[in-house]
């Protein structure tokens, strides 16, 4: 059996999504900007996809949702355009973000620091989230933008976006959220929270790789990164990726329709897996379940180094991750684990398991059995675990890791 539990890295494309995008490769292939019927033939499908995305996010018709190539582009677009629009002009020079953002935010911020931006990287609490009062305390009259992820790619922890949005609105500061791990996993209602910009990527909710979007709240100016034609209302140039836009529309519709029901089903499987793995002694799961995306577990197994564990899982045909997929070959400790105060040994043991709506009960059973076998094997080799004094009854819990 093969089990894919790395859905926070990417997801399988839903067969229904594949089906709707197919005709736009070979049958309806005209450039949508062309005036002839070959081009205009794709307009109804694009229009439908736009409607599907707006509906899924409950965006207002006055807002813009612009298709991009991925969330990395969307994140870079916001940060770099705010830099160009505000920081270069000299009226504001400060960006606030967190220590645990995706590299597409952190690396862009570091690049902007070299250009003259002042960036504050906020710490997270023992649950791995930034607290609203911390955001408030760092906002100054020089702050141009606050950028905080909606949910963590590594821990699944959901950030207090509503509260942070209210603070930004009150202070007159623009607010961007990297929603890549939230859209399609939990309800995202853009009229219920004050977010000026939201990044997303279709391949995180069973759409194809290479298509994403940026939500821009009504009337917020944001200079384009890509200049050229007048595509996407002049917001982003580049010929429209018609099959992928159509696919993203269908994917987000499928992911968000009856989302509470889908969440409950995924959460039940996740919790069963988590409970079973926590039967192993000296194991720890980061963050409480209530405030986590329903598909994610970041588990630390005392004495078992992360890559070694990943190796054994891979041998058992189980795909998982030591953290973010972008850093899975990195030799460093899990940065989120360090940020939330895990000791540095434990930070080398984190394994992320992320489910999807396609994960089955039998796959969970198989994973539990193989995971336990791998832990026993690697602990038998482990020099570290040999030195750990046995905990009476084995201390295993879903706990807060303390500083």
């Amino acid at each position, binding site marked *: 059996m093969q089990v894919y539990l790395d859905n926070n890295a990417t997801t399988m494309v839903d067969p229904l999504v594949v089906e709707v995008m197919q005709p736009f490769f070979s049958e309806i292939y005209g450039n949508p900007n062309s005036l002839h019927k070959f081009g205009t033939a794709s307009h109804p499908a694009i229009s439908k996809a736009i409607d599907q995305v707006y509906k899924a996010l409950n965006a207002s018709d006055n807002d813009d949702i612009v298709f991009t190539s991925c969330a990395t582009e969307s994140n870079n677009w916001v940060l770099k355009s705010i830099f160009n629009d505000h920081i270069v002009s000299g009226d504001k020079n400060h960006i606030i973000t967190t220590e645990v953002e995706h590299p597409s935010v952190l690396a862009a911020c570091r690049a902007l620091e070299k250009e003259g931006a002042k960036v504050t990287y906020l710490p997270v609490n023992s649950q791995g989230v930034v607290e609203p009062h911390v955001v408030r305390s760092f906002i100054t009259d020089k702050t141009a933008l606050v950028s905080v992820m909606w949910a963590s790619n590594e821990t699944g922890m959901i950030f207090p976006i509503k509260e942070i949005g209210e603070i930004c609105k009150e202070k007159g500061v623009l607010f961007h959220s990297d929603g890549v791990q939230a859209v399609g996993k939990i309800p995202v209602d853009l009229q219920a929270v004050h977010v000026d910009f939201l990044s997303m990527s279709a391949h995180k909710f069973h759409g194809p790789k290479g298509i994403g979007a940026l939500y821009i709240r009504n009337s917020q100016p944001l200079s384009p990164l890509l200049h050229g034609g007048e595509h996407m209302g002049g917001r982003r140039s580049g010929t429209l990726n018609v099959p992928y836009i159509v696919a993203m529309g269908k994917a987000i519709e499928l992911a968000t329709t009856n989302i509470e029901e889908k969440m409950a089903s995924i959460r039940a499987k996740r919790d069963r897996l988590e409970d079973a793995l926590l039967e192993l002694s000296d194991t720890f799961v980061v963050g409480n379940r209530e405030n986590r995306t329903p598909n994610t577990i970041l588990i630390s197994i005392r004495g078992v180094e992360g890559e070694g564990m990943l190796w054994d899982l891979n041998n058992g045909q189980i795909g998982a991750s030591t953290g973010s997929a972008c850093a899975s070959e990195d030799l460093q400790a899990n940065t989120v684990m360090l940020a939330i105060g895990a000791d540095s*040994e434990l930070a080398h043991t984190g394994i992320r398991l992320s489910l999807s709506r396609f994960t089955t009960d039998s796959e969970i059973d198989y994973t539990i059995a193989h995971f336990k076998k791998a832990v026993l094997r690697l602990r038998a080799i482990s020099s570290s675990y040999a030195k750990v004094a046995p905990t009476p009854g084995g201390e295993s819990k879903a706990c807060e890791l303390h500083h």
Partner: protein
Amino acid sequence: MAKNDLLGASLWDAYSNKVTTLMNNPNHQGEITEQEAAEHGNRLIVADFGAESCGDAVRLYWEVDPKTDIIVNSKFKSFGCGTAIASSDIMTELCIGKTVKEAVKITNIDVEFALRDSPDIPAVPPQKMHCSVMAYDVIKKAAALYMGVDAESFEEEIIVCECARVSLKTLQEVIRLNDLTTIEQITDYTKAGGFCKSCIKPGGHEKREYYLVDILRDTRREMDEEKMKAAADAGSKGSFESMTLVQQIKAIDAVIDESVRQFLIMDGGNMEVIDVKPSEDYVDVYIRYLGACNGCASSATGTLYAIEATLKEKLSKKIRVLPI
């Protein structure tokens, strides 16, 4: 960057079959107890190296025959990735049957080489070489415990790149002898910095005492200082060709002030040195005539010849004077 770098290679694909096999089924994993060693009349040595906080740690067990100093059995435990486990396993195998003194000579290069499927193809990707280094270090630690000495006493040289075992002395010599100016050149000549890259500059996987960027900078600075000193010494000894440009200009001015200028001034003229440019065969001295010399018929013939001859005689036969 090139075509082959556009898609990052899979880390595990770069492991040899031996690494894969030993990771899955290590032959020497486990412990040796005091009781077992005592039953065989042997001495048990247990050495730890690395730290869980760094993501890599190893514990090495040796059962040593005290009469012969031969390691009769060896086992390990490891907190680490696949390469750490495989390296530790092959390291214990290499120790068995050797005397402690022989075992100390096993380097990380030997460990990595023993893991290869084919002599020409590395067993692990570059960033994983540090795992074999740890195996080497724990052997030294075990030997030190057995012999009652400091583990550092086995190291005769300061090792900068542990993956490639390149010493500080070697690096300094190679930079000097080959006039190296970049880290890439150092890696090409010595392999230092070509593996886990921790030794290139601060901020890598492991904190290092010495970094290639500092060694290159300091050695280049020493070379420049030595060159300047040599030039200054050469100048004081009158060797024109070995002088720095500034020294050459000063020397030319001194000769002109001493032996040429007063004759020109007597005739209502003068001259100034505009530039000095060394070429392959000559040192070209560009001059400009001033006052009566400017436009004088002799300035291009007799006077010019006299100035050049004086400089040739006093400084160097290679001097050529060019009026502009």
